[in-house]
């Protein structure tokens, strides 16, 4: 396999790029493990769609990281213990019919397909606790809305591009709304960890 590429991002960070985006969670987990074991010191390890950013690195730690990655292979072991979060969803989103039509399915068929999909948190961003979930096949990618909504309610389950997501709080948003998550708090500062969904977490939406 092709080894991850390290690209300097300023004086204190490395952006690590992989060819296979599906290996990002395992790569981030491996770096987190090295950090937990005291092999490298870093402030933040931030997965992206096809990269992992390691920020707050000294030159020495950057060199150790490079050595580590020269020998890294994406294995199953790192992902085996990842939590599965099941989220009950009322599929009542205003864009569900449009999404289903775009897939040439009935809404019920679209719901069944989403319910049968195991998602993985690829990365977070946009807002605290907002997770970009992958798992839908490529041909299910949906366009963002042409006009973003000025307010999307907290708990809205939505699709855009190759991703699914749940809005952790009310905010503007351009994703297609397909449902409402029931009985979960995506983000709670008083909880440890504060985010229900963190990179690597597996997710299922239950109708």
């Amino acid at each position: 396999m092709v080894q991850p590429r390290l690209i300097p991002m300023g004086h204190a960070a490395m952006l690590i790029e992989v060819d296979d985006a599906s290996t990002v969670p395992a790569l981030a987990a491996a770096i987190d493990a090295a950090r937990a074991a005291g092999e490298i010191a870093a402030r933040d390890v931030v997965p992206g769609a096809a990269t992992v950013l390691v920020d707050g690195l000294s030159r020495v730690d950057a060199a150790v990281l490079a050595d580590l990655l020269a020998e890294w292979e994406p294995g199953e072991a790192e992902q085996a213990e990842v939590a599965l979060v099941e989220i009950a969803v009322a599929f009542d989103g205003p864009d569900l019919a449009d999404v289903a039509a775009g897939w040439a399915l009935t809404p019920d068929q679209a719901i069944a397909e989403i319910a049968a999909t195991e998602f993985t948190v690829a990365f977070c961003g946009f807002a605290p606790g907002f997770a970009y979930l992958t798992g839908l096949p490529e041909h299910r990618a949906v366009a963002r809305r042409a006009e973003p909504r000025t307010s999307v309610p907290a708990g809205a389950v939505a699709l855009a591009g190759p991703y699914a997501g749940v809005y952790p709080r009310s905010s503007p948003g351009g994703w297609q709304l397909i449902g409402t998550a029931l009985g979960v708090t995506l983000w709670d500062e008083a909880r440890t960890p504060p985010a229900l969904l963190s990179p690597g977490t597996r997710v299922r939406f239950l109708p």
Partner: protein
Amino acid sequence: MIEIIDAGLLLTVQDLGRAGHAHLGVPRSGALDMRSLRRANALVGNAPGAAALEATMTGVVLRAHAALVVGVAGAAAAVFVGDVPAPVGRPMRLAAGQVLDIGPATAGARTYVAARGGIDVAPVLGSRATDTLSGIGPSPLATGDRLAVGESAAAPQELFAAASGAGAGAAEHPAAPDQPVTLRMLAGPRADWADATDLAELAHRPFVASERSNRVGLRLTGATVGRARDDELPSEGLVVGAVQLPPSGEPVVFLADHPTTGGYPVIGVLDSASIAAAAQVQPGQRVRLVLASSRPDALPPGSVQIP
């Protein structure tokens, strides 16, 4: 206890920020100009990361409700304790009831006021910083707000004697608003997404700080940088000081409250001194972006390495 008499344009509590939560979408936040935060804290004998006040452009007026030792650093401004001009770069004693009045910034944009003992608000995820992007931490301060100050031992006399102490020394003033600010950047991970000619001539592009600049980013206008490629970049992690190139071609220099991931190419990353300098740029001020490449593969086109 400190009472805010006039919060000015934007007054927030800031420290070194909340590290270690970026993977959950939480910006680091913290003081925009870390150098000045540390200097203000050093003036009063605090730990470098003690929480302090960050005032923006128009200054701040506050009243001490108990005797207090304060230090001011950052933007140049007229500082008064009561009616008396105060010695900037030295710790100041405020008696109970006395008012500290920091005027509008005459150079620079952010002024830090440290109080001995630190501003005592409840930490959230390990930091007292106000994160204006995600709303984590204390709300921006408003006129009439009262803030507790942490416990501390009486200020040692040496603090006041040391005219060139740790905090007072080497205080460089931010550039005057009619002078350009030079920000030095290393080539970013996506420098090759920028038009090569535009990147090579970056230092000659007359950028101006936009009025829309804030704690999230210093937005540049007045010139644009073209794109070498127009495909979509998958979202990737961002760092403070990242110079991002949105479709408009007007670069954004990310400051402490930057989003944790983004989908526009990062063409450069400022060095730490330039991040502090970027935090002190006034809206309308001229900005030069200078590519200081240390990566052989990122030398501007046309530059030749001679063995």
